[in-house]
Protein backbone atom coordinates (compact mmCIF):
# COMPACT_ATOMS: atom_id res chain seq x y z
CA UNK A 1 0.00 0.00 0.00
CA UNK A 2 1.26 3.46 -0.80
CA UNK A 3 0.64 6.71 1.08
CA UNK A 4 -2.10 7.85 -1.28
CA UNK A 5 -4.06 4.68 -0.79
CA UNK A 6 -3.45 4.88 2.94
CA UNK A 7 -4.84 8.42 3.00
CA UNK A 8 -8.12 7.21 1.49
CA UNK A 9 -8.63 4.61 4.21
CA UNK A 10 -7.08 6.42 7.16
CA UNK A 11 -10.34 7.93 8.40
CA UNK A 12 -12.23 4.65 8.19
CA UNK A 13 -9.35 2.90 9.92
CA UNK A 14 -9.30 5.42 12.75
CA UNK A 15 -13.06 5.33 13.11
CA UNK A 16 -13.01 1.55 13.35
CA UNK A 17 -15.37 1.14 10.44
CA UNK A 18 -15.75 -2.18 8.74
CA UNK A 19 -13.36 -2.75 5.89
CA UNK A 20 -11.76 -5.63 4.12
CA UNK A 21 -9.31 -7.48 6.34
CA UNK A 22 -6.57 -7.35 3.70
CA UNK A 23 -6.89 -3.62 3.30
CA UNK A 24 -6.87 -3.12 7.04
CA UNK A 25 -3.76 -5.24 7.52
CA UNK A 26 -1.98 -3.53 4.66
CA UNK A 27 -2.87 -0.10 6.07
CA UNK A 28 -1.63 -1.01 9.53
CA UNK A 29 1.57 -2.43 8.08
CA UNK A 30 2.08 0.72 6.03
CA UNK A 31 1.53 2.96 9.06
CA UNK A 32 4.25 1.07 10.90
CA UNK A 33 6.65 1.46 8.04
CA UNK A 34 5.85 5.04 7.06
CA UNK A 35 6.39 7.78 9.64
CA UNK A 36 4.12 10.47 8.08
CA UNK A 37 1.30 7.96 7.74
CA UNK A 38 1.82 6.87 11.33
CA UNK A 39 1.37 10.48 12.42
CA UNK A 40 -1.60 10.79 10.12
CA UNK A 41 -3.39 7.83 11.64
CA UNK A 42 -2.49 9.13 15.08
CA UNK A 43 -4.18 12.45 14.30
CA UNK A 44 -7.22 10.68 12.92
CA UNK A 45 -7.50 8.54 16.03
CA UNK A 46 -7.24 11.58 18.27
CA UNK A 47 -9.94 13.31 16.30
CA UNK A 48 -12.13 10.25 16.51
CA UNK A 49 -11.64 10.09 20.24
CA UNK A 50 -12.53 13.75 20.56
CA UNK A 51 -15.68 13.32 18.53
CA UNK A 52 -16.72 10.27 20.50
CA UNK A 53 -16.16 12.12 23.72
CA UNK A 54 -18.48 14.80 22.44
CA UNK A 55 -21.04 12.16 21.50
CA UNK A 56 -20.88 10.67 24.96
CA UNK A 57 -21.27 14.06 26.55
CA UNK A 58 -24.34 14.81 24.48
CA UNK A 59 -26.01 11.44 24.81
CA UNK A 60 -27.91 12.49 27.86
CA UNK A 61 -29.09 15.75 26.34
CA UNK A 62 -32.77 15.81 25.54
CA UNK A 63 -35.30 18.40 24.56
CA UNK A 64 -37.12 20.08 27.42
CA UNK A 65 -40.35 18.48 28.54
CA UNK A 66 -42.19 21.68 27.73
CA UNK A 67 -41.84 20.89 24.01
CA UNK A 68 -43.63 17.60 24.44
CA UNK A 69 -46.38 19.30 26.40
CA UNK A 70 -46.76 21.98 23.71
CA UNK A 71 -46.85 19.39 20.96
CA UNK A 72 -49.41 17.28 22.78
CA UNK A 73 -51.55 20.35 23.23
CA UNK A 74 -51.18 21.05 19.55
CA UNK A 75 -51.97 17.44 18.74
CA UNK A 76 -55.22 17.59 20.69
CA UNK A 77 -56.36 20.98 19.50
CA UNK A 78 -55.02 21.54 16.09
CA UNK A 79 -57.41 19.47 14.09
CA UNK A 80 -59.35 22.60 13.31
CA UNK A 81 -56.17 24.56 12.75
CA UNK A 82 -54.41 21.88 10.81
CA UNK A 83 -57.22 21.06 8.48
CA UNK A 84 -57.77 24.62 7.31
CA UNK A 85 -54.05 24.98 6.79
CA UNK A 86 -54.01 21.90 4.62
CA UNK A 87 -57.20 23.02 2.87
CA UNK A 88 -55.58 26.35 2.18
CA UNK A 89 -52.58 24.61 0.71
CA UNK A 90 -54.80 22.37 -1.37
CA UNK A 91 -56.74 25.39 -2.58
CA UNK A 92 -53.62 27.15 -3.67
CA UNK A 93 -52.41 24.02 -5.43
CA UNK A 94 -55.86 23.58 -6.97
CA UNK A 95 -55.66 27.08 -8.34
CA UNK A 96 -52.35 26.30 -9.99
CA UNK A 97 -53.72 23.09 -11.39
CA UNK A 98 -56.81 24.79 -12.74
CA UNK A 99 -54.69 27.44 -14.40
CA UNK A 100 -52.46 24.79 -15.91
CA UNK A 101 -55.42 22.77 -17.19
CA UNK A 102 -57.05 25.88 -18.65
CA UNK A 103 -53.82 26.79 -20.41
CA UNK A 104 -53.51 23.28 -21.82
CA UNK A 105 -57.12 23.33 -23.05
CA UNK A 106 -56.57 26.69 -24.68
CA UNK A 107 -53.51 25.41 -26.48
CA UNK A 108 -55.30 22.26 -27.62
CA UNK A 109 -58.30 24.20 -28.93
CA UNK A 110 -56.06 26.67 -30.72
CA UNK A 111 -54.17 23.86 -32.42
CA UNK A 112 -57.41 22.12 -33.39
CA UNK A 113 -58.88 25.34 -34.78
CA UNK A 114 -55.81 26.02 -36.87
CA UNK A 115 -55.76 22.46 -38.18
CA UNK A 116 -59.50 22.55 -38.92
CA UNK A 117 -59.13 25.76 -40.90
CA UNK A 118 -56.16 24.50 -42.85
CA UNK A 119 -57.95 21.24 -43.65
CA UNK A 120 -60.99 23.19 -44.82
CA UNK A 121 -58.87 25.24 -47.18
CA UNK A 122 -57.16 22.14 -48.50
CA UNK A 123 -60.52 20.40 -49.01
CA UNK A 124 -61.83 23.40 -50.94
CA UNK A 125 -58.80 23.46 -53.16
CA UNK A 126 -58.91 19.74 -53.80
CA UNK A 127 -62.62 19.96 -54.62
CA UNK A 128 -61.87 22.66 -57.14
CA UNK A 129 -59.04 20.64 -58.60
CA UNK A 130 -61.30 17.61 -58.91
CA UNK A 131 -64.12 19.60 -60.47
CA UNK A 132 -61.99 21.17 -63.14
CA UNK A 133 -60.92 18.06 -65.07
CA UNK A 134 -64.45 16.65 -65.09
CA UNK A 135 -65.82 19.72 -66.79
CA UNK A 136 -62.67 20.08 -68.84
CA UNK A 137 -63.32 23.75 -68.94
CA UNK A 138 -60.83 26.31 -67.92
CA UNK A 139 -61.68 29.66 -69.21
CA UNK A 140 -58.62 31.63 -70.12
CA UNK A 141 -58.42 35.15 -68.91
CA UNK A 142 -58.99 36.79 -72.22
CA UNK A 143 -58.18 35.60 -75.63
CA UNK A 144 -59.17 32.08 -76.47
CA UNK A 145 -60.09 31.93 -80.10
CA UNK A 146 -62.38 29.04 -80.98
CA UNK A 147 -64.56 29.85 -83.84
CA UNK A 148 -64.22 32.88 -85.98
CA UNK A 149 -67.83 32.74 -87.05
CA UNK A 150 -69.04 32.57 -83.45
CA UNK A 151 -66.79 35.44 -82.63
CA UNK A 152 -68.24 37.51 -85.35
CA UNK A 153 -71.86 36.83 -84.37
CA UNK A 154 -71.53 37.82 -80.69
CA UNK A 155 -71.99 41.37 -79.53
CA UNK A 156 -69.26 43.38 -77.94
CA UNK A 157 -69.39 43.71 -74.18
CA UNK A 158 -67.02 44.89 -71.45
CA UNK A 159 -64.61 42.17 -70.56
CA UNK A 160 -63.68 40.75 -67.21
CA UNK A 161 -59.99 40.14 -66.89
CA UNK A 162 -59.74 37.65 -64.08
CA UNK A 163 -59.15 33.99 -64.70
CA UNK A 164 -62.20 32.06 -63.54
CA UNK A 165 -63.30 28.48 -63.36
CA UNK A 166 -66.88 27.28 -63.72
CA UNK A 167 -68.55 24.16 -62.57
CA UNK A 168 -71.98 24.20 -64.14
CA UNK A 169 -73.37 24.54 -67.60
CA UNK A 170 -75.06 27.92 -67.26
CA UNK A 171 -71.99 29.51 -65.81
CA UNK A 172 -69.95 27.92 -68.53
CA UNK A 173 -72.20 29.34 -71.21
CA UNK A 174 -72.01 32.80 -69.68
CA UNK A 175 -68.28 32.55 -69.41
CA UNK A 176 -67.95 31.43 -72.98
CA UNK A 177 -70.07 34.34 -74.07
CA UNK A 178 -67.93 36.78 -72.16
CA UNK A 179 -64.78 35.13 -73.42
CA UNK A 180 -65.93 35.34 -76.98
CA UNK A 181 -66.71 38.99 -76.44
CA UNK A 182 -63.18 39.50 -75.23
CA UNK A 183 -61.74 37.64 -78.11
CA UNK A 184 -63.90 39.62 -80.48
CA UNK A 185 -62.57 42.83 -79.05
CA UNK A 186 -59.07 41.65 -79.48
CA UNK A 187 -59.75 40.12 -82.83
CA UNK A 188 -61.09 43.41 -84.04
CA UNK A 189 -57.99 45.29 -82.94
CA UNK A 190 -55.25 42.71 -83.51
CA UNK A 191 -53.79 40.62 -86.19
CA UNK A 192 -52.28 37.26 -85.39
CA UNK A 193 -50.36 34.52 -87.09
CA UNK A 194 -51.56 30.96 -87.20
CA UNK A 195 -50.77 28.77 -84.22
CA UNK A 196 -47.42 27.19 -84.76
CA UNK A 197 -46.63 24.00 -82.92
CA UNK A 198 -43.95 23.98 -80.27
CA UNK A 199 -42.23 20.72 -81.03
CA UNK A 200 -44.22 17.66 -82.02
CA UNK A 201 -47.91 18.27 -81.56
CA UNK A 202 -50.51 15.57 -81.52
CA UNK A 203 -53.76 17.28 -82.54
CA UNK A 204 -55.75 15.00 -80.26
CA UNK A 205 -54.11 16.67 -77.30
CA UNK A 206 -55.73 19.95 -78.15
CA UNK A 207 -59.15 18.36 -78.18
CA UNK A 208 -58.96 17.94 -74.44
CA UNK A 209 -59.03 21.68 -74.06
CA UNK A 210 -56.47 24.10 -72.80
CA UNK A 211 -55.67 27.70 -72.17
CA UNK A 212 -54.36 30.53 -74.26
CA UNK A 213 -51.97 32.66 -72.31
CA UNK A 214 -50.88 36.08 -73.52
CA UNK A 215 -47.18 36.65 -73.05
CA UNK A 216 -44.47 38.92 -74.33
CA UNK A 217 -41.40 37.35 -75.90
CA UNK A 218 -38.24 38.82 -77.41
CA UNK A 219 -38.70 39.75 -81.01
CA UNK A 220 -35.81 37.45 -81.86
CA UNK A 221 -38.13 34.56 -81.08
CA UNK A 222 -39.87 35.27 -84.39
CA UNK A 223 -36.78 34.06 -86.18
CA UNK A 224 -37.10 30.67 -84.57
CA UNK A 225 -40.40 30.19 -86.39
CA UNK A 226 -39.19 31.48 -89.73
CA UNK A 227 -40.77 34.91 -89.49
CA UNK A 228 -38.62 37.78 -90.67
CA UNK A 229 -37.37 40.08 -87.94
CA UNK A 230 -36.74 43.78 -88.25
CA UNK A 231 -33.23 44.09 -86.91
CA UNK A 232 -33.80 47.72 -85.96
CA UNK A 233 -36.34 46.60 -83.41
CA UNK A 234 -34.39 43.52 -82.44
CA UNK A 235 -34.38 44.34 -78.70
CA UNK A 236 -38.09 45.00 -78.47
CA UNK A 237 -40.67 42.57 -77.32
CA UNK A 238 -43.59 41.17 -79.20
CA UNK A 239 -46.84 39.81 -77.89
CA UNK A 240 -47.73 36.19 -78.37
CA UNK A 241 -50.47 33.77 -77.40
CA UNK A 242 -49.31 30.41 -76.11
CA UNK A 243 -51.65 27.49 -76.18
CA UNK A 244 -51.15 25.54 -72.99
CA UNK A 245 -52.55 22.03 -72.76
CA UNK A 246 -54.41 20.78 -69.69
CA UNK A 247 -51.24 19.15 -68.47
CA UNK A 248 -49.56 22.56 -68.42
CA UNK A 249 -47.34 21.91 -71.42
CA UNK A 250 -47.08 24.72 -73.99
CA UNK A 251 -48.20 23.26 -77.27
CA UNK A 252 -48.40 26.06 -79.80
CA UNK A 253 -47.69 29.73 -80.22
CA UNK A 254 -48.95 32.57 -82.31
CA UNK A 255 -47.68 36.08 -82.56
CA UNK A 256 -50.02 39.02 -82.20
CA UNK A 257 -49.77 42.61 -83.30
CA UNK A 258 -52.08 45.62 -83.08
CA UNK A 259 -53.73 46.60 -86.30
CA UNK A 260 -52.75 50.20 -85.67
CA UNK A 261 -49.08 49.30 -85.77
CA UNK A 262 -49.40 47.37 -88.98
Amino acid at each position, binding site marked *: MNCQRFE*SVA*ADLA*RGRMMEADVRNEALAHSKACQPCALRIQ*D*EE*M*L*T*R*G*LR*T*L*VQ*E*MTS*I*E*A*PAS*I*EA*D*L*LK*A*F*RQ*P*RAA*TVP*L*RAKTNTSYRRYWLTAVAACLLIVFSVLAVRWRSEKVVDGESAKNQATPEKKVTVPPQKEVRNEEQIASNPTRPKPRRKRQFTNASALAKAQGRQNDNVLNHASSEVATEFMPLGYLNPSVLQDGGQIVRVEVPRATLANFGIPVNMDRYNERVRADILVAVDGTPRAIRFVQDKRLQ
Partner: protein
Amino acid sequence: MKQQTELTDPELLRLMLSGDEEAFTLLYRRRHSSIYRFALQMCGSQQVAEDVTHDVFLFLMRDGQAFDPARGSVSSFLLGVARNYVLRRFRSEHSTVPLGEDEDDQPFDPVTNEPGPLDDLTRAETVDNVRKAVLSLPERYREVVVLCELQELSYVETAEILGCAIGTVRSRLHRARALLLTKLRPIEDAELTSSPAVESARCFA
Protein backbone atom coordinates in the same frame (compact mmCIF):
# COMPACT_ATOMS: atom_id res chain seq x y z
CA MET B 1 -52.06 -7.85 18.98
CA LYS B 2 -48.85 -5.87 19.32
CA GLN B 3 -48.43 -3.37 22.08
CA GLN B 4 -47.68 0.11 20.87
CA THR B 5 -44.17 0.00 22.29
CA GLU B 6 -43.44 -2.87 19.92
CA LEU B 7 -44.70 -1.06 16.87
CA THR B 8 -42.29 0.21 14.27
CA ASP B 9 -41.93 3.87 13.48
CA PRO B 10 -43.99 3.73 10.26
CA GLU B 11 -46.79 1.95 12.13
CA LEU B 12 -46.71 4.55 14.87
CA LEU B 13 -46.75 7.29 12.30
CA ARG B 14 -49.78 5.78 10.61
CA LEU B 15 -51.60 5.54 13.93
CA MET B 16 -50.57 9.06 14.79
CA LEU B 17 -51.96 10.38 11.54
CA SER B 18 -55.22 8.65 12.27
CA GLY B 19 -55.40 10.62 15.52
CA ASP B 20 -53.82 8.25 18.03
CA GLU B 21 -52.26 10.49 20.67
CA GLU B 22 -50.43 7.67 22.37
CA ALA B 23 -48.73 6.76 19.12
CA PHE B 24 -47.63 10.33 18.68
CA THR B 25 -46.25 10.45 22.22
CA LEU B 26 -44.37 7.23 21.70
CA LEU B 27 -42.93 8.35 18.41
CA TYR B 28 -41.93 11.68 19.87
CA ARG B 29 -40.19 10.07 22.81
CA ARG B 30 -38.37 7.70 20.50
CA ARG B 31 -37.08 10.30 18.09
CA HIS B 32 -37.06 13.70 19.69
CA SER B 33 -33.66 13.41 21.33
CA SER B 34 -31.83 12.72 18.08
CA ILE B 35 -33.65 15.61 16.42
CA TYR B 36 -32.84 17.92 19.30
CA ARG B 37 -29.20 16.89 19.40
CA PHE B 38 -28.84 17.22 15.68
CA ALA B 39 -30.22 20.75 15.77
CA LEU B 40 -28.06 21.62 18.78
CA GLN B 41 -24.93 20.25 17.15
CA MET B 42 -25.67 22.09 13.97
CA CYS B 43 -26.60 25.43 15.57
CA GLY B 44 -24.98 25.47 18.95
CA SER B 45 -28.05 27.17 20.35
CA GLN B 46 -30.48 25.49 22.71
CA GLN B 47 -33.24 27.90 21.79
CA VAL B 48 -32.93 27.16 18.10
CA ALA B 49 -32.69 23.44 18.80
CA GLU B 50 -35.92 23.58 20.78
CA ASP B 51 -37.66 25.53 18.06
CA VAL B 52 -36.47 23.13 15.39
CA THR B 53 -37.60 20.09 17.39
CA HIS B 54 -40.99 21.68 17.93
CA ASP B 55 -41.33 22.58 14.24
CA VAL B 56 -40.28 19.14 13.07
CA PHE B 57 -43.00 17.37 15.04
CA LEU B 58 -45.57 19.96 14.10
CA PHE B 59 -44.65 19.26 10.50
CA LEU B 60 -45.07 15.56 11.17
CA MET B 61 -48.58 16.18 12.46
CA ARG B 62 -49.53 18.31 9.51
CA ASP B 63 -47.68 16.66 6.63
CA GLY B 64 -46.83 13.23 7.92
CA GLN B 65 -48.30 11.75 4.76
CA ALA B 66 -45.23 13.03 2.97
CA PHE B 67 -43.21 10.21 4.51
CA ASP B 68 -42.40 7.53 1.95
CA PRO B 69 -41.12 4.24 3.43
CA ALA B 70 -39.45 3.44 0.13
CA ARG B 71 -37.13 6.41 0.53
CA GLY B 72 -35.84 5.69 4.01
CA SER B 73 -36.70 5.36 7.65
CA VAL B 74 -38.85 7.64 9.75
CA SER B 75 -35.74 8.69 11.61
CA SER B 76 -34.03 9.76 8.39
CA PHE B 77 -37.18 11.54 7.31
CA LEU B 78 -37.34 13.50 10.55
CA LEU B 79 -33.66 14.36 10.42
CA GLY B 80 -34.12 15.55 6.84
CA VAL B 81 -36.95 17.81 7.95
CA ALA B 82 -34.85 19.05 10.85
CA ARG B 83 -31.98 19.79 8.51
CA ASN B 84 -34.27 21.87 6.32
CA TYR B 85 -35.46 23.86 9.31
CA VAL B 86 -31.88 24.38 10.50
CA LEU B 87 -30.73 25.56 7.09
CA ARG B 88 -33.71 27.87 6.95
CA ARG B 89 -32.63 29.31 10.27
CA PHE B 90 -29.09 29.76 9.00
CA ARG B 91 -30.33 31.70 6.03
CA SER B 92 -32.65 33.88 8.01
CA GLU B 93 -30.26 34.66 10.85
CA HIS B 94 -26.59 34.22 10.13
CA SER B 95 -25.64 35.24 13.65
CA THR B 96 -26.85 31.92 15.05
CA VAL B 97 -23.56 30.23 14.34
CA PRO B 98 -20.96 31.60 16.68
CA LEU B 99 -18.02 30.94 14.41
CA GLY B 100 -18.29 32.03 10.83
CA GLU B 101 -17.18 30.14 7.78
CA ASP B 102 -14.58 32.76 7.08
CA GLU B 103 -12.50 31.38 9.92
CA ASP B 104 -12.24 27.96 8.33
CA ASP B 105 -8.55 28.02 7.75
CA GLN B 106 -7.56 29.68 11.00
CA PRO B 107 -6.55 27.60 13.99
CA PHE B 108 -9.10 27.53 16.75
CA ASP B 109 -7.83 29.73 19.58
CA PRO B 110 -8.59 27.62 22.67
CA VAL B 111 -6.81 24.67 21.16
CA THR B 112 -3.90 26.56 19.75
CA ASN B 113 -3.10 27.83 23.21
CA GLU B 114 -2.66 24.27 24.40
CA PRO B 115 0.81 22.87 24.07
CA GLY B 116 0.03 19.17 23.65
CA PRO B 117 -2.06 17.04 21.32
CA LEU B 118 -5.75 16.32 21.73
CA ASP B 119 -5.34 13.42 24.09
CA ASP B 120 -3.51 15.65 26.58
CA LEU B 121 -6.51 17.87 27.00
CA THR B 122 -8.92 17.33 29.75
CA ARG B 123 -12.22 15.80 28.86
CA ALA B 124 -14.21 18.98 29.34
CA GLU B 125 -11.81 21.00 27.25
CA THR B 126 -11.85 18.38 24.57
CA VAL B 127 -15.59 18.40 24.38
CA ASP B 128 -15.75 22.15 24.27
CA ASN B 129 -13.05 22.48 21.65
CA VAL B 130 -14.42 19.77 19.41
CA ARG B 131 -17.92 21.21 19.68
CA LYS B 132 -16.68 24.64 18.69
CA ALA B 133 -14.56 23.24 15.91
CA VAL B 134 -17.56 21.40 14.52
CA LEU B 135 -19.67 24.53 14.73
CA SER B 136 -17.02 26.45 12.85
CA LEU B 137 -17.18 24.13 9.85
CA PRO B 138 -19.02 25.21 6.71
CA GLU B 139 -22.60 23.94 6.66
CA ARG B 140 -22.08 21.20 4.10
CA TYR B 141 -19.19 19.74 6.08
CA ARG B 142 -20.77 20.32 9.46
CA GLU B 143 -23.92 18.40 8.64
CA VAL B 144 -21.90 15.42 7.46
CA VAL B 145 -19.80 15.41 10.60
CA VAL B 146 -22.89 15.74 12.78
CA LEU B 147 -24.72 12.94 11.03
CA CYS B 148 -21.86 10.50 10.50
CA GLU B 149 -19.73 11.17 13.56
CA LEU B 150 -22.04 12.59 16.21
CA GLN B 151 -25.30 10.90 15.26
CA GLU B 152 -23.31 7.82 14.22
CA LEU B 153 -25.40 7.20 11.13
CA SER B 154 -24.16 5.15 8.21
CA TYR B 155 -23.12 6.69 4.92
CA VAL B 156 -26.33 5.36 3.37
CA GLU B 157 -28.57 7.00 5.98
CA THR B 158 -26.64 10.24 5.74
CA ALA B 159 -26.96 10.22 1.98
CA GLU B 160 -30.74 9.71 2.32
CA ILE B 161 -31.04 12.64 4.69
CA LEU B 162 -28.88 14.95 2.63
CA GLY B 163 -30.32 13.78 -0.66
CA CYS B 164 -26.91 13.17 -2.21
CA ALA B 165 -24.73 10.27 -3.29
CA ILE B 166 -22.82 8.12 -0.84
CA GLY B 167 -19.59 9.11 -2.52
CA THR B 168 -20.41 12.73 -1.84
CA VAL B 169 -20.91 11.91 1.83
CA ARG B 170 -17.56 10.14 1.98
CA SER B 171 -15.67 12.93 0.27
CA ARG B 172 -17.32 15.62 2.39
CA LEU B 173 -16.56 13.69 5.55
CA HIS B 174 -12.96 13.28 4.50
CA ARG B 175 -12.66 16.98 3.87
CA ALA B 176 -14.49 17.83 7.08
CA ARG B 177 -12.17 15.71 9.16
CA ALA B 178 -9.18 17.33 7.55
CA LEU B 179 -10.60 20.74 8.43
CA LEU B 180 -11.26 19.63 11.99
CA LEU B 181 -7.72 18.38 12.33
CA THR B 182 -6.43 21.69 11.06
CA LYS B 183 -8.50 23.53 13.64
CA LEU B 184 -7.59 21.22 16.49
CA ARG B 185 -3.90 20.70 15.65
CA PRO B 186 -1.50 22.30 18.12
CA ILE B 187 -0.09 25.66 17.26
CA GLU B 188 3.50 24.44 17.21
CA ASP B 189 3.28 23.11 13.73
CA ALA B 190 2.04 26.42 12.42
CA GLU B 191 4.66 28.31 14.35
CA LEU B 192 7.42 26.18 12.92
CA THR B 193 6.38 27.02 9.42
CA SER B 194 6.28 30.74 10.14
CA SER B 195 9.31 31.08 12.45
CA PRO B 196 11.53 34.18 12.22
CA ALA B 197 14.41 32.02 11.03
CA VAL B 198 12.45 30.95 8.04
CA GLU B 199 11.38 34.50 7.34
CA SER B 200 14.91 35.84 7.55
CA ALA B 201 16.10 33.06 5.32
CA ARG B 202 13.53 34.05 2.76
CA CYS B 203 14.65 37.65 3.14
CA PHE B 204 18.19 36.69 2.31
CA ALA B 205 17.11 34.66 -0.64
